[in-house]
């Protein structure tokens, strides 16, 4: 035994055996790990091409459906990595979840290729160190591709120049000898109202044997209505050209509401109280009213004019003298009508309106070219605040509801009221109650101070009205109210009004009376339109795509790019 331990023969063989096992083990591990890296490199290339290929089938915003997934898997398979074969897994994920700059982007797709590896040479180590945990890795790589998106907008100009938004059979009311002459289309199909549901009623109503409309041309579907029952075609309905030609059914179309194309239009109104009209227009000024009631010419320099609430002399923009001539610079003007400031008679509840009863008026909106029939600017001539008190209905005489209090007179002074300035609220009627302030002396009302809220009545309380008081008791005071329609904008009387551009009164009623109510390259958007005169419209000077135009925006995907 001791001889055997002393013997050195075969020592090299033993050393070699030991060294060789370590050497082969190391080589084996090296080769194996290298192989995994090489596999991952190959997977990376396949994942990238699969991701880019899948992205061609990815719609903008996702999801990556079956077509997209199959596209990725097919390309991965062609490049050597087939899903489900030899432990290969090809996962197609959109939006990507792996860390990349496109992670979470719905326009991107991730392709992840993984394969569980098995040990080849590494098994030697399990023999050498049986207790060690030695496992082959799950080798994988992912590629991410992104599609770009751009939008394309195509526009078609509208052919209408009259749009009423009320969902009512008399959205357009033509009375007496009224003749609505439109060398363009007329849309009375309900606009905003109709969009909130209910039966489509928007249409045109004729009142008077001679009332008539002239619409568009023979080639156009000139009249757009919502109601299936409409008085046109009929004796009241003619074409504009050829003259004296009756409309046919081909000239009428039913619509589920032509949208108000200017519902997004807005103006920023300078803050602060308004200033009184001096007779000399200054661009950018906030006037309480613009009241042109005398002789002579008033020319408005190009720019924007603001009118807050109106005042005791004028509801907003008024022309009342047949001696008045009103013009604007060719570059154009815009009148913005909004509510008053403060709590007085023409306070926050009162919106400026238009009241033209006479005069010779020639106004041009910025960019509106009447001669050429084109619009190259904002092309807004009158713009009434969209918060303005809304017309709720129009009666057969063309008077819009609601009514507001324009004057208060003392009928009975009463007794027992608290002395000082008292605020009285009108009792009765239907609608928003009017309030006013008055002076109380000796327990009795002695003087009316101001109307703080004109109210909005669909049924006006009968005079004399009783009231409630803000402070203390008191009885017996009675008042006589004068009420007027508070949503009426009139273009009436003799004279001529040649206008170019948009007249926007989306919440109220526009009344066109007299021979020269309005004519020109102009368009109206209003809730109701009352026609008792002979206005004449033509198309082309409206902002944007006009009325009844369409704008279609489509999303176009651009070729995929690979996340670097």
């Amino acid at each position: 035994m001791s001889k055997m331990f002393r013997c050195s023969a075969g020592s090299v063989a033993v050393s070699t055996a030991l060294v060789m096992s370590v050497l082969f083990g190391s080589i084996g591990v090296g080769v194996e790990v290298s192989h995994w890296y090489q596999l991952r490199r190959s997977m990376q290339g396949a994942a990238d091409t699969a991701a880019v290929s899948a992205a061609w089938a990815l719609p903008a915003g996702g999801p990556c459906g079956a077509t997209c997934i199959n596209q990725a898997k097919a390309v991965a398979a062609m490049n050597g990595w087939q899903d489900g074969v030899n432990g290969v897994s090809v996962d197609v994920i959109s939006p990507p979840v792996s860390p990349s700059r496109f992670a979470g982007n719905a326009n991107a797709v991730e392709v992840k290729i993984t394969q569980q590896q098995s040990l080849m040479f590494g098994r030697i180590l399990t023999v050498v160190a049986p207790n060690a945990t030695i496992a082959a890795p799950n080798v994988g790589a992912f590629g991410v591709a992104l599609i770009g998106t751009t939008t394309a907008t195509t526009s078609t100009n509208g052919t209408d120049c009259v749009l009423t938004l009320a969902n009512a059979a008399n959205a357009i009311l033509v009375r007496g000898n009224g003749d609505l002459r439109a060398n363009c289309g007329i849309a009375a199909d309900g606009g905003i109202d109709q969009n909130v549901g209910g039966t489509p009623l928007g249409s045109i109503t004729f009142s008077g044997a001679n009332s008539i409309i002239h619409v568009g041309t023979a080639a156009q579907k000139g009249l757009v209505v919502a109601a299936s029952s409409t008085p046109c075609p009929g004796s009241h309905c003619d074409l504009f050209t050829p003259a004296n030609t009756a409309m046919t059914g081909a000239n009428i179309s039913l619509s589920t509401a032509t949208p108000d194309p200017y519902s997004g239009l807005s103006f920023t109104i300078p803050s602060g109280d308004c200033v009184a009209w001096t007779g000399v227009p200054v661009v950018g000024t906030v006037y309480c009213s613009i009241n042109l009631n005398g002789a002579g010419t008033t020319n408005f320099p190009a720019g924007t004019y603001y009118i807050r609430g109106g005042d005791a002399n004028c509801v907003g923009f008024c022309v009342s003298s047949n001696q008045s001539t009103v013009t604007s610079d060719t570059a154009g003007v815009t009148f913005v009508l909004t509510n008053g400031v403060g709590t007085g008679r023409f306070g926050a509840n009162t919106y400026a309106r238009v009241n033209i009863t006479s005069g010779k008026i020639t106004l041009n909106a910025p960019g509106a070219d009447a001669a050429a029939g084109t619009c190259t600017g904002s092309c807004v001539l009158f713009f009434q605040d969209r918060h303005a008190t809304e017309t709720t209905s129009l009666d057969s005489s063309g008077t819009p509801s609601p009514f507001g209090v324009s004057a208060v007179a003392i009928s009975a002074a009463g007794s027992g009221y608290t002395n000082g300035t008292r605020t009285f609220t009108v009792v009765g009627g239907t609608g928003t109650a009017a309030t006013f302030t008055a002076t109380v002396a000796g327990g009795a009302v002695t003087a009316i101070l101001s109307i703080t809220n004109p109210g909005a009545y669909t049924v006006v309380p009968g005079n004399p009205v009783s009231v409630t008081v803000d402070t203390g008791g008191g009885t017996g005071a009675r008042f006589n109210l004068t009420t007027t329609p508070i949503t009426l904008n009139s273009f009436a009387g003799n004279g001529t009004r040649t206008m170019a551009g948009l007249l926007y009164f989306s919440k109220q009623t526009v009344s066109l009376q007299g021979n020269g109510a309005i004519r020109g390259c102009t368009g109206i958007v209003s809730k109701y339109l009352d026609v008792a005169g002979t206005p004449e419209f033509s198309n082309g000077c409206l902002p944007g795509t006009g009325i009844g135009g369409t704008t279609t925006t489509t999303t176009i995907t651009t070729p995929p790019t690979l996340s670097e």
Partner: protein
Amino acid sequence: MRLLNRLLRRTDGAVALEMGLVMPMLALMLYGIHDFGTVYVEALQVEHATQTAATYAYKQFVASGSVTQSDIQTAVTASEPIPVTVAATQFCGAVNAGATSVTSAACPGGGTYITLSGSMSALSTHHPWSVFPTTLTASVTVRVK
């Protein structure tokens, strides 16, 4: 005879003799390892070059709507350290039912694909009895439209 006996008993030069016997085996093994390594690296390079060609072809096709074989070859030659020849085939294809392949289909119903096939003669010093391939190839297919 005595001389022969004496020589046989001598142990001098035994290591040299063993060395002489083992050396050819060792040399062959080393040669094999070198050759394998070289071919392996070259195979990787060919695959990488083909993927580069695919990336170039894709980008060029997207940018200009077409790509030429010579442009692809020029790009690969300029960017890769080895003389890989790349052949490009453009075809209209559609994903097959099992999503395992893209088969030719009518244009323009399906997508447009380019298959890049890279090949190169192995640069390692082969002997005829070598088991390694003499031509290294790789193929990458990508949808370009």
